[in-house]
């Protein structure tokens, strides 16, 4: 078990695409760390560079106390679960789990014992003689996890571990993975494009965009205080309201309405400055009656989210969204007022959080 440290890590592909641009990152021992970002942001390249499947153009990868930048993947003491699980179709479950041990020349009996032990822990004991082709997606994933666990590597790397499972199984697997990681206590880095997955599973996460890390933090920090408008727009199952505004003395003018300056930005804005005002739909209090500091307009769309509704208000030709609990949703065409929570609203100056 070991910490992972990246120093100025850079990867430039032939042809000049800069997939990773001088990244610095420390992942402490035992942490469950998510790399999150849209496709093409470099998150998978970063994971593969840690694994050694891609060679870094510059910078260093340190695992534990060892600089492994120039070390072959097989000698880095990391194990990886691939998106397609990469189970060998001609080997049964036991041989698949024991494969890394076979390469390490562990004796046949020890390998079988280890595979049986790890397999039993993941509930695979009755499947040990089957081929991967005879297993369901969820079972294949557990075999891939068992193979990783059997190696007793310093760190685990998961590439989109849940993306090949169907939606229902994905939620189960999410809980299962998080529990397993906690029990094993092995430093684990996983890549995902699904912000909900990252928020749900990770101890800490990095949000990436075009080769850069835009924010590192706990899921709560990233969700509540996105460091910039990119992260603000990317995180959250309902997108954050990001509204252009102007500072007017003690208040902000946003979409033609006067709203209060958020608590965290008080005294740090200059009069007349252009800002972006950000507030999540979940942090709006909706009301049919006018309220001081609320954004008022006509209800244009009501979307059902199950236990709540997402209401879109047309506020002087600007769309403002608010989440309304079930039972009190308005009808399209009603007048409505959305009051931002002052402790949760954010102000961005030049794209960065104030």
């Amino acid at each position, binding site marked *: 078990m070991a910490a992972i440290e990246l120093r100025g890590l850079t990867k430039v592909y032939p042809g000049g695409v800069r997939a990773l641009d001088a990244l610095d990152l420390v992942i402490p021992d035992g942490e469950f760390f998510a790399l999150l970002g849209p496709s093409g942001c470099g998150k998978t390249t970063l994971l593969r560079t840690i*694994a050694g499947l891609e060679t870094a153009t510059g910078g260093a990868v340190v695992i534990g106390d060892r600089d492994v930048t120039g070390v072959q*993947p*097989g000698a880095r003491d990391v194990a*990886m679960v*691939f*998106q397609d699980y*990469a189970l060998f179709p001609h080997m049964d479950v036991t041989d698949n789990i024991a494969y890394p041990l076979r*390469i*390490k020349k562990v004796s046949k009996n020890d390998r079988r014992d280890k595979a049986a032990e790890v397999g039993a822990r993941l509930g695979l004991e009755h499947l040990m003689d089957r081929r991967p082709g005879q297993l369901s997606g969820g079972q294949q994933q557990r075999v891939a996890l068992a193979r990783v666990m059997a190696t007793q590597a310093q760190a685990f790397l998961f590439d989109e571990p849940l993306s090949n499972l169907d939606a229902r199984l994905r939620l189960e697997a999410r809980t299962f993975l998080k529990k397993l990681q906690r029990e094993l206590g092995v430093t684990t880095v996983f890549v995902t494009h699904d912000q909900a997955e990252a928020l749900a599973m990770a101890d800490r996460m990095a949000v990436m965009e075009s080769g850069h890390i835009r924010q590192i933090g706990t899921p709560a920090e990233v969700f509540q205080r996105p460091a910039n408008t990119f992260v603000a727009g990317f995180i959250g199952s309902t997108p954050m309201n990001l509204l252009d505004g102007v500072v007017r003395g003690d208040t902000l003018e946003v979409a033609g309405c006067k709203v209060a300056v958020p608590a965290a930005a008080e005294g740090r804005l200059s009069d007349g400055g252009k800002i972006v005002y950000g507030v999540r739909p979940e942090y709006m209090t909706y009301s049919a009656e006018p309220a001081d500091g609320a954004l008022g307009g006509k209800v244009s769309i009501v979307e059902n989210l199950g236990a709540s509704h997402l209401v879109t208000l047309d506020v002087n030709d600007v769309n403002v969204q608010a989440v309304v609990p079930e039972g009190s949703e308005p009808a399209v065409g009603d007048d409505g007022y959305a009051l931002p929570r002052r402790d949760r609203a954010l102000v961005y100056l030049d794209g960065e959080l104030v």
Partner: protein
Amino acid sequence: MAQATSPPETRPEDEAQAPRYSSDAAGLGKARAGAFAAPALLLIAVFLVFPALWVLYLGLTNYRLTGTAAAEPQFVGLDNLLDAVSNPTFWSSTWLTVQFVLGSAVIGQVGLGFAIAWLLRDRRGPLKRVVEGLVILAWILPSAIVSFLWVALLDRDGGTLNALLGLPGFAWLLDHPMLSIIVFNTWRGTAFSMMLYGAALGNVPPSHLESARLAGASGWQQLRDVVFPHIRGHILTNLLLISLWTFNDFSPFLLTAGGPDGKSEVLAVHVYKVALQSGELGYGAAVSTIILLINLVVAVFYLRLLRSKK
């Protein structure tokens, strides 16, 4: 709901349409489909099936190219076959053919073809195109031209190879006839295996190779544990085709004419010599029958491997 619970009512309509729209994929019906296939089947019958059967029959006669036996061949039963198996030239030809197949097909073409495909698998750009272009060029040139090139290459006095090696007067085709035709046939036929393995390697999932690399597998272990199991079917199909083609290959004749002194007289050349040069058509047909049987045995062997559980 009413429709779903009363399928019998819709049945008669379906049956009424059945004669017009047949259930086969093309909707032709047996008669018309047969009519479309007939011309091709006729050609196959005339040019492939009939000659093969005719050879089987000829093998049972004393038919000759010239003389009385040419005008009135006699039925001699299995005499020709018994003659063949008691003829030492037949056995030496069989043994030379085995060497030729193992050397130039199994080791040469398959081994070299796979090696080139494996080494070029991740390469892009001019090197790959040049290597592939040269290998394929050797394959597509007509045999007559290719054998002339090789005769010129291996010639004792003015040959290119001797000039390159500084060995004037070294008679490759006389001193090493088998080696010469094995290298020649390897050079000539590698392209097919190379292209087949090139396509097969593209089907090996990269994540499987990477998984093996992360486990610390060496190049050989990656081949053994990931690549070969994945392309097993390709390997066997390739071996089957290449073995049969090489077994029946006649082009060594163009280099050595079976000589010197029968040292490169593979079975195809042997049949040509006895049937057309010595005129013993019946005996030649009997040897051809044996070749056919050997081909069948080889094919059955590979097909069994292919079908057996992995």
